[in-house]
């Protein structure tokens, strides 16, 4: 199988900011992303769970596979949204099938 080098960026961010983040990503030229639900977690701002919540609370995880050369643009876009907010951004090296899609 023909694989291509890529970066896998995972951004855990507060749910009320999801649309701001994805808009920023798209503006930064990201062609695709996947949003995973988050059930709960813990960090400096305490422990939380989604159970029984009614409002737009908790966090979501946005996963983004991109070409390595686009990483900096993406991180800047992500950082502009995450900056003042709680949230975690991590990057892993990855290989992808069908690079024409990225």
């Amino acid at each position, binding site marked *: 199988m023909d694989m291509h080098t890529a970066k896998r960026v995972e951004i855990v961010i*507060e749910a*009320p*900011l999801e649309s701001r983040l994805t808009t920023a990503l798209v503006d930064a030229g990201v062609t695709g992303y996947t949003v995973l639900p988050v059930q709960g977690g813990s960090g400096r*701002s305490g422990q939380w*769970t989604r*159970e*029984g919540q009614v*409002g737009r*609370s908790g966090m979501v995880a946005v996963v983004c596979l991109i070409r390595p050369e686009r990483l900096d643009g993406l991180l800047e876009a992500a950082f502009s949204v995450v900056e003042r*907010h709680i949230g975690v951004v991590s990057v892993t090296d990855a290989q992808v099938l069908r690079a024409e899609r990225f």
Partner: protein
Amino acid sequence: MADILTLAGDNLLSPIILSFALGLFAALARSDLTVPEAVAKGMSIYLLFAIGFKGGAAVAENGIDATLLLSLGAGVLLSFVLPFIAFALLRAMTGLSRIDAAAVAAHYGSISIVTFVAGTSVLESQGIGSEGYMVAVAAVMEAPAILSALWLVAKGRPEAPADDGLIREILLNGSIVLLVGSFFIGFATGAEGLEKISSFIVSPFQGVLCLFLLDMGLVAGRGLRNTRGAIGMGSVAFAILMPLIGSVAGLMLGLAIGLSPGGVALMMVLSASASYIAVPAAMRVALPEANPSVYLTLSLGVTFPFNLTLGIPIYVAIATTLAGG
């Protein structure tokens, strides 16, 4: 006085309050009882739809009252003004930062729709009528308080947070849209529409409310457990004093407008209640530096149970006495 006590006693033994207490107990005892998020959201959609629809149908039935516009205006005014009172009190009574105080203040200017629903239940169980459009007043009171809070913060720092999407987001918040929308549906379809769906939105309403309050007890209890210690006595005192102050403001405007005793009571309940759904989400976007555990604990962990148990009977007793029951 004896009246208030009997009323409070009756109230404490209602299935609604006991369900909340059960949830609170379960969470504090660290039971693994939980209501799934989707079910909690489903119940809140049901409650908002039902309360909006019934309000609209009542207005269609009774005609548009001369005081309708005045009441809406009073609601907007209260929502704008109460945060300033709350903010001043918080700065005097607690050590909260400017930003935390503003965030808390936004919650107390806005309203809690479940407290409102509990208030209407108490009125109903005592056979006291009220204006159907009070649910529209509830809707218009959700948002203005957020703007007051932003203004309070902006005053304190040069660079204002210029997020143009925010205002739209606040006004088109799901719960406002659903409440106002179902109000209009109820108004448009009237008694006939209500009859069609009353075995869905009227008969099982109290029961759904019980399960919803069970969930609120669980969420409040988990919150209290996780933030134990982060809240000072001054803040707790504020969370009991502020609803009383708010209710007095609501009382005065309600009497001035000439609402019925039930309407005055609901105006008091709205003013006394503090948001814990719409405003927290808006605060995460607008004032991310504010500590959520402070405002959630005060609003959901202290003020909500206070209103549910003691506040509402007090407000109803005062309203019926002063507005002539």
